[in-house]
């Protein structure tokens, strides 16, 4: 039952909830990794110098490094596989507008454009909710879309299911 419903979603544009939840997961994962990195650097410096090294998290340098780390995290993830850890968890993937795999150059453009979507009260993200193809500003700039991609066929490495002739068959009931 779940498998059949899973197949009906494959290849369709991912919506706001999946993308928001995956972004939250990514923030937690990347922030956790960043904290671990800072702790490791502090420990290493303490071992080498013998002095206690601590980080002021509100300093501009640390915030700048964190922002850079976020770009690296998202950029490398999109460039390598088209998905971050959070996106993998929720079964969504970044692909080109025609559905083909994302190449590193386009992933880099998407990563650079990503912060601009958060400017002016996240105005660039409105397209995820309001747009027909659920594209944010950085999707439009990079020519990408985010689709659902998981399920039995995607998991075993075999080709994806054939194109479905319309929206997912499990459309919500009227008035839902």
């Amino acid at each position, binding site marked *: 039952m*779940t*498998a059949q419903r899973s197949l009906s979603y494959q*290849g*369709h544009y991912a919506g706001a*909830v999946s993308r928001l939840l995956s972004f939250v997961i990514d923030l937690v994962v990347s922030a956790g990794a960043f904290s671990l990195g800072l702790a490791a650097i502090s420990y290493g410096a303490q071992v080498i110098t013998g002095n206690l090294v601590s980080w002021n998290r509100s300093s501009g340098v640390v915030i700048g490094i964190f922002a850079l780390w976020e770009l690296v995290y998202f950029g490398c993830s999109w460039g390598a596989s088209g998905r971050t850890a959070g996106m993998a968890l929720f079964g969504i993937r970044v692909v080109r507008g025609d559905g083909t795999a994302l190449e590193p150059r386009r992933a880099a453009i998407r990563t650079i454009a990503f912060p601009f979507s958060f400017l002016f009260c996240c105005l660039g993200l409105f397209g995820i*909710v309001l747009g027909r193809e659920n594209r944010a500003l950085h999707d439009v700039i990079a020519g990408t879309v985010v689709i659902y991609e998981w399920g039995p066929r995607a998991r075993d490495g075999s080709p994806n299911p054939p*194109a479905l*002739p319309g929206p997912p068959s*499990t459309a919500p009931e009227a008035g*839902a």
Partner: protein
Amino acid sequence: MTPRDHYRRPANPAEALAQQLAERAVDLVVGALDVNELASRVDVNAIIDRIDVNSVLRKLDLNTLVGQLDLNALVGQLDLNALVSQLDVNELAQRIDVASLVEKADLGAIIAESSGGVVRETVDAVRCQTARLDQVIDHWVDLLLRRKRPASPALLTARGEP
């Protein structure tokens, strides 16, 4: 008809007498022979040693022999119920080294596989629920904007293609 009847009967009376004498002598000798004693003196092992079994086997066409066997008829003649009833299942079960079997079975892998399946199912269910929520939001947005979402086909991800 005995084998001796195959011999041509001599026409000469002297030859017939000689023939009868010879037959009588043979009967006496055979009657006097102790066959058991004779067999006990035969060195069967020496005879078997002189037989070239490999040569005999090479000449045998085992495929033809086996092909001529009617295995169904053989199996049909077996009384499997009688065979099974003679089996002492309890004794057989006692002989099984369960501890060794458990050691050989990779229980860790079995447990990991089964628990992995449960996790996979759970994650799939969560994905389906979030996708459904996406659809609900899209549906409401379409209603608010009074637009009809075109029936767009699913995009295919051509992995590995440029």
